[in-house]
């Protein structure tokens, strides 16, 4: 079925499919499936979905301190006095901070970079919140900075850039370990990951 046939069925469906396929990870086929699912769904559910979308757009903002997506500024993490604000974890996006929060192992604060350095996409250090991070470090020197960027070339370049910009030698800088995933098999682990796992091995006694 080509696009001209679809338009003749219903311009409303075509418009809906067009909007849905603009979402990340949604191709034309998935957009069509979603559109027909929406049509079959009771109106009350669609109303509450559209209200949630509007509410998210209108009420969510970025914390001026750590740049996480939040309803209140400062966010619940920055304003929580029981958290360790002398430990700072640097992540690419809010979703990474939520992933770490779900582990219940970290109680420090975050700094969201809003992406990673990606020259091919025209994203350099100035497009991220690196200058705000450096200002934050200067104003309130942390005891430890944990770099939790993705272990990709672009994530690495971002972390190297940040480390080079932090001039204060007193602050401890650590990076999340890279290695074999839990449940993984050694014999299926590629050389690069295995080498990295060996290099960052930890003493256990």
């Amino acid at each position: 079925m080509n696009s001209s046939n679809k338009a003749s069925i219903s311009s409303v469906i075509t418009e809906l499919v067009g909007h849905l396929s603009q979402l990340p990870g949604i191709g034309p086929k998935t957009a069509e499936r979603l559109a027909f699912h929406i049509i079959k769904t009771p109106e009350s559910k669609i109303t509450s979905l559209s209200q949630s979308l509007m509410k998210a757009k209108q009420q969510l903002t970025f914390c001026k301190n750590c740049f996480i997506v939040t309803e209140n500024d400062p966010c619940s993490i920055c304003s929580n006095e029981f958290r360790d604000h002398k430990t700072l974890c640097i992540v690419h996006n809010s979703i990474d901070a939520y992933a770490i929060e779900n582990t219940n192992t970290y109680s420090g604060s975050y700094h969201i970079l809003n992406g990673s350095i990606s020259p091919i996409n025209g994203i350099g250090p100035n497009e991220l919140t690196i200058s705000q991070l450096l200002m934050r470090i200067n104003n309130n020197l942390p005891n430890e900075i944990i770099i939790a960027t993705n272990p990709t070339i672009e994530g690495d370049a971002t972390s190297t850039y940040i480390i080079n910009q932090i001039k204060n030698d007193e602050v401890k800088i650590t990076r999340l370990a890279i290695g074999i995933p839990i449940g993984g098999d050694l014999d299926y682990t590629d050389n690069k990951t295995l080498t990295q796992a060996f290099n960052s091995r930890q003493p256990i006694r």
Partner: protein
Amino acid sequence: MQKTRYLNFEGITISSNDYGEFDKIYNILSESEGVIPCILKRIKKNNNKNYDSIDIFQKMEFKASVRENFWTIYEAKNKHSWFDRPINLAKLSSSNIIAELCIKFNSINENNTYIYHLVNICLSLISKNNILFSLIYFQIKILISEGIFPEINNCLSCKTKLTPDDYYLIFEIGGLSCSKCLTDNTKIKLLESEIRLIKYISKIELSYNESAQKTIENVNINLYKKISQYIKYHTTQEIKSEKIFFTSLN
């Protein structure tokens, strides 16, 4: 409907984009097929045993299925990585410039052994910190391979041999002009040393592991910028990585 083809090939990952929740699309430069956009399904799930750790600027052995020009990689094994971790911004952005030029110049599904080996050499040079030389080498070689390398021996209008202080590269005519024949066309002045370097690089062919120590001292960012302007004139496209590359040099 076309049949599904199954292929084994060697390629270099030159750029990647997220696609959906777990998938990524990689632009892979291959010797036999040029730049191919390939989907790697569930690549973000790190327990997939069919893939080695994949990142950009890795040489890998791929197994792919192709149907109606839609490439899906189902196995990828690492052969070579140029960059030790952590990589700095200058190396990343200069490699990105090479990737962008590859994508602009190299047609999809077209055999291009020359470009494939050129990228191999240039990434090797960048990994050894010969960054500016590598970029200029790549620029000149790609201009030659695309047939838009400028005429640099005589004035293109009056055919006289050029003298120092007389070097103007005229974009429209694709060559040098003497000061007497200058018109209002888009032009840049080239220094004698720059012309000599361009001539030298146009003649040499580096092998994969060869260093280029002799020429490195002569290269400068201004020559890179001048050739880049010329390339931009002919492709009418910006190189996004350039801005960040210049930032990384400060």
